[in-house]
């Protein structure tokens, strides 16, 4: 990602990417484990309780860590149909406000997520079937939320800095992802597949 245009993103993206890839491996491992469980249950009547719980943890962690990566890539969904028709100065303000709001939301989620772990520790709760203490998956989940909040806050501060100093770039760096940009990445992937096909 040498052409990553956002100076803050250049720092944030590799961190979110690394953690996300690790979680990706966990999803794959979960798929394999679940497949083994289905085959074991079908063929040998062996049943392993607790895959449901594991699945829930996998999703919670995927959602939280993925949110940080999607944040770094500014993928989170926005409606841009009216926004792009407003005057430029209004767009700059609205884009900054949207980021500050999302940062506030992410910060609130991380703060209240912390309280969830506090409560878990207080009651020493654990998953009924798996038997593992709940704070284990919850702390990975919280790590994702904190990362999400940190990136959102950094982006919001950067946008605020650009806005207050009258520098350009807010709309390009922090506006909604346009269809052209989304399409561009889709076409790049297609091109890569074709090259592989002809190799």
């Amino acid at each position, binding site marked *: 990602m040498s052409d990553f245009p956002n100076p803050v993103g250049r720092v944030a993206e590799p961190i979110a990417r690394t953690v996300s890839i690790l979680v990706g491996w966990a999803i794959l491992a979960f*798929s394999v484990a679940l497949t083994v469980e289905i085959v074991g249950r079908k063929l040998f009547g062996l049943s392993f309780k607790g895959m449901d719980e594991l699945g829930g943890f996998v*999703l919670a962690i995927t959602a939280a860590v993925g949110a940080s990566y999607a944040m770094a890539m500014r*993928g989170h*969904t926005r409606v841009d149909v009216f926004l792009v028709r407003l005057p430029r100065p209004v767009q700059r303000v*609205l884009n900054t406000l949207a980021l500050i709001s999302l940062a506030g939301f992410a910060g609130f*989620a991380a703060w209240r997520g912390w309280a969830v772990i506090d409560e878990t520790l207080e009651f020493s709760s654990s998953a009924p079937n798996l038997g593992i203490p709940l704070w284990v998956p919850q702390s990975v989940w919280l790590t994702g939320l904190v990362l999400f909040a940190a990136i959102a806050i950094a982006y919001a501060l950067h946008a605020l800095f650009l806005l207050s100093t009258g520098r350009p770039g807010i709309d390009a760096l922090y506006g909604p992802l346009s269809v052209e940009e989304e399409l561009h990445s889709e076409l790049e992937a297609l091109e890569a597949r074709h090259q592989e096909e002809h190799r």
Partner: protein
Amino acid sequence: MITISAATLGFLLLIVLMSLGFHVAFAMFAVSIAGASFYLGVPATLEYGTQYWSATNNSVLVAVPLFVLLGEFLVRGGFTDRMYRSLADWLSPLPGGLLHSNLGACALFAAVSGSSVATAATVGTVALPAFDKRGYDQRLVLGTIAAGATLGILIPPSINMIIYGAMTNTSVGRLYAGGIVPGIVLTLLFMGVVVLACRVRPALAGPKEAPRPLVERLRGLADLGPPLAVFGLVMGAIYGGWATPTESAALGVVVALGLCAVRGRLSIRMLHESFLSTLSITAMITLITAAAFYLNFVLGVMGVPDLITRFVTGLQLSQGQMIVILTIFYLILGCFLDALAMVVGTIPVVFPIILALKIDPVWFGIYLVLMAELALITPPVGMNLYVVQGIRGRGNIREVIEGVLPFLLMMLLMVALIWFWPKLVLALPALVMG
């Protein structure tokens, strides 16, 4: 106690925040928090962390990243690209020729990839150059791709249905079974439009072409095998009764991974790229879904479902009148909202009405997915319109919009069909799941 006008005000606030370009998830969160602190007191909002954890610690929703990953493997393994060529061989003898390959390829590709943008981009890129020299009507070519790419959310495995199922406690297996027949009928209706248009005005289609030799066409059939096998395995596992949708998705991931390995497409880089797409897409979906769960919770505590139910019962509307009103409502929302945001944002308010009027939740799920499909191609925000126009890179988007109009009408016809003949949706779930 909250009044119906205060609830309406909240809904309008939600729409205004979204329209101003605030993130969809934030808009839902802000409205819920505002409602909760006003009616339940600020301390109630501090429970947000627990709500957030339990919304995403969800063993039904974990099917979402698994199906996304499965699609990533099939797309990055090159299986879906080959599918198009093979379908073109078999469908082009119909009146309208290659246009049917677009529809067929879109339906299959979208079903396995689950992404409407990826479908429109891939089929568009492969198909558009092929049409350039052949003298087909541009609008019809563009329309088949943009409309065809929406079929994927109706044909299982559909991510929208998992989310609807999780939010309303409706069986995802039943929803999947419910989507199959309407998915096939809608594909046939789309093809019917093309046949009809090209019968009436043969100039719309290009000249007939000699088919490739039979041997080659038969060999090409093998390219349909892998995606169909994965699809069959996933569906078979669910309806054979030995796997939940989540488990069958995991099975599909492992098989797709194996297929990529056999074709020599497996590499660490490919895996990591698939992971990143999966994380990113899942996170975008769950951020909105978790916010909608919270909205659902807050509205529930505030007694809004009861309020709406009493209000709607007071109106003495029939089921049919309500569906007409909802269809107009969703058509308008779909003109400017993202399809998923539209579905999850309205479930908390609309679902109680559905229950109050005793409309079948599986039927309504399929109806809602049809409305989401419409949202993908209604201007000005129909995502697919812009994707297809983007690949084409010339002319005016008006041609794409004109091209999808006949297909838009077919979707509305489909809504009417499932209304007058609910068995189209409900017969298959009853048959396979009792």
